[in-house]
């Protein structure tokens, strides 16, 4: 604050002069007036910081001047100079908003104190004004920032490909973006602040979100889920949705839903499944054709050899040819059997049986073939495994399939220096389950072969497999409520483990019940 400008008003010229000189010597700038009227003109022209005025003056007295000044600038410091006992005027002056009073005759000390007080008040007021101005600009800045951010968010919501619908605590829709109006087919102006969740959502969906809001206090973010939105009987489509329940200081304030229209994705998925199915059919047909062709080659070759044998009366030839024909007839029979098993629903015939015994039976059955191929057969049965309820025929077939696969894996291994073995083992897992493993150290499989294992008609054996073996095995295992697990490494061997319930009957019932 610079030098204060003080307006001195008194009709006694001498007093005006004395005061003026005194104040100037104290460093103030002074201006003067001889009565209220004159002072008012000067006040308007010069805007003094402080006014010191006598009361009794001609034309316009000090009280009237005070009133007029306060009309112009309510904050102006006006110090009133009063005579002794002038109580009425003092009260009026107070009512008009005088800042201070000095008694006549004006003493320097009293004047100095009054001026200091006035200056303090001015300073405080200016500081206050400064703070207020600062505050105002800060508020303006913050408001602008908020406006910008909210605008940005609005644009974001507007531009989002996901449909966004938000409800307040009374389930009135407060956010509804264009993507949402594409899904719900209702324009925003008909929805925003007008509709509630029950007006917009189908009843089942509305119920889901209301329940979510009621229960969702603990967890605010829910993962993406899928559902079918049925807006009309002929307008149902799949959506993925996510929900956020909004809380402010633990109070439920609303809920936001995000929706993604999955129609196109579902359609593409469907197409993919369809084309894979077609490819599988193609593969199945060509695989089967290949296998049947091989049988045909065998039969034709065999009958030629038989012809030659008959012509020459050569019993050896006859025998060889006839063996070939018989072998290929068996292949046709096996193929038919496999196809029927694969195509037909079949309920396992359950009866008490001992898995260990079945494993031993199968081992005995293949022991000759294995020995002929130079493969050792190792048997490790778990003595803790007693009787279970199972279809012994099914177990038998599954094991036979796996063991003959294992033998093929050994004979097809390029590394003939190996000491080939097949290990069949049983394990009592816990009270309810047991498993049977068939492991070999044959050729193993690479990842591509492994990924194709359960494809219909995929055969890793060229034309020598139907491609049905493992598929049939898998089906039988499933019918028996079991699971199949494969571990394999190219060049190292494979291990197939099938796990079954001890009582396939009760497991089957549980399966059907659930």
């Amino acid at each position, binding site marked *: 604050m610079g030098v204060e400008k003080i307006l001195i008003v008194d009709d006694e010229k001498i007093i005006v002069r004395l005061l003026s000189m005194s104040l100037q010597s104290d460093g103030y700038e002074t201006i003067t007036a001889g009565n209220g009227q004159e002072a008012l003109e000067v006040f308007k022209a010069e805007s003094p910081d402080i006014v010191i005025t006598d009361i009794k003056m001609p034309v316009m007295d000090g009280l009237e001047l005070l009133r007029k000044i306060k009309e112009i600038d309510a904050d102006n410091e006006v110090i009133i100079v009063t005579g002794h006992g002038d109580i009425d005027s003092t009260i009026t002056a107070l009512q008009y908003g005088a800042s201070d009073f000095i008694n006549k005759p004006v003493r320097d000390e009293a004047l100095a104190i009054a001026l200091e007080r006035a200056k303090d008040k001015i300073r405080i007021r200016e500081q206050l004004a400064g703070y207020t101005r600062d505050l105002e600009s800060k508020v303006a800045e913050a408001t602008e920032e908020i406006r910008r951010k909210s605008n940005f968010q609005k644009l974001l919501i507007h531009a989002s490909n996901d449909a966004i619908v938000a409800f307040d605590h009374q389930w009135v829709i407060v956010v509804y973006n264009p993507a949402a109006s594409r899904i719900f087919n209702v324009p925003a102006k008909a929805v925003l602040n007008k509709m509630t969740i029950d007006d917009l959502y189908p009843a089942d969906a509305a119920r889901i979100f209301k329940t979510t809001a009621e229960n969702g206090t603990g967890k605010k973010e829910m993962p993406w889920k899928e559902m079918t939105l049925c807006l009309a009987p002929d307008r149902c489509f799949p959506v993925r949705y996510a929900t956020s329940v909004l809380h402010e200081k633990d109070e439920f304030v609303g809920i936001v839903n995000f929706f993604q229209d999955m129609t196109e994705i579902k359609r593409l998925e469907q197409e993919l499944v369809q084309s894979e199915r077609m490819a599988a059919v193609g593969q199945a047909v060509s695989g089967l054709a290949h296998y049947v062709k*091989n049988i045909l080659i*065998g039969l034709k*070759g065999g009958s030629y*050899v038989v012809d*030659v044998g008959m012509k020459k009366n050569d019993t050896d030839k006859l025998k*060889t040819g006839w063996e*070939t024909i018989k*072998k290929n007839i068996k292949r046709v029979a096996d193929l038919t059997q496999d196809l029927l098993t694969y195509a037909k629903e079949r309920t396992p015939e359950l009866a008490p049986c001992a898995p260990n015994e079945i494993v031993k039976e199968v081992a005995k059955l293949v022991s000759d073939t294995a020995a002929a191929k130079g493969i050792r057969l190792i048997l490790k049965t778990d003595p803790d495994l007693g009787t279970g309820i199972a279809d012994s025929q099914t177990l038998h077939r599954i094991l036979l399939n796996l063991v003959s696969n294992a033998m093929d894996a050994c004979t097809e291994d*390029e590394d003939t220096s190996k000491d080939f073995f097949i290990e069949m083992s049983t394990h009592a897992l816990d009270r309810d389950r047991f498993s049977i493993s068939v492991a070999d150290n044959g050729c193993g499989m690479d990842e591509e072969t492994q990924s194709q294992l359960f494809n219909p008609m995929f055969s890793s054996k060229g*034309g020598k497999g139907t491609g049905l073996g493992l598929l049939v095995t898998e089906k039988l295992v499933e019918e028996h409520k079991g699971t199949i697990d494969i571990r394999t490494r190219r060049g190292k061997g494979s291990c197939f483990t099938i796990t079954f319930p001890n009582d396939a009957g009760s497991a089957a019932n549980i399966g059907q019940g659930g």
Partner: protein
Amino acid sequence: MNKKVLVVDDDSDVRSFVVTVLEENGYIPLQACDGVEGLEKIQQEKPDLVILDVLMPRGSGIRLYRQLKTHEALKALPVIMFTGIAMRSFLKSQKALEAFNGGEIPKPDIYLEKPVEPEELARAIDTKIG
């Protein structure tokens, strides 16, 4: 003197068929049931012709064919491919291997896709060494 023909096939049915055809047409049949055994028999017995399957364990027909055609002393040995694999697939595999290994291997003299009538097989053998 009768000529020797080696049939390399892992399928015993096919072998007995081819052996019978060979016998019927006055050749001396030799047998091998995979690629490794095939090469051994070729070096030991020096056959006049090889009838070769493609898909076999232990050294496929693809490998044996290349071994023969890149072997200085054996490359002139006539080979009849006798297989269930389409010729197109076989040639494709050869092309891929050539791109990988470099060099060019002549195409098989005769390529027969199973099943084949005995007369057709006999005729093919005759055109090569009859």
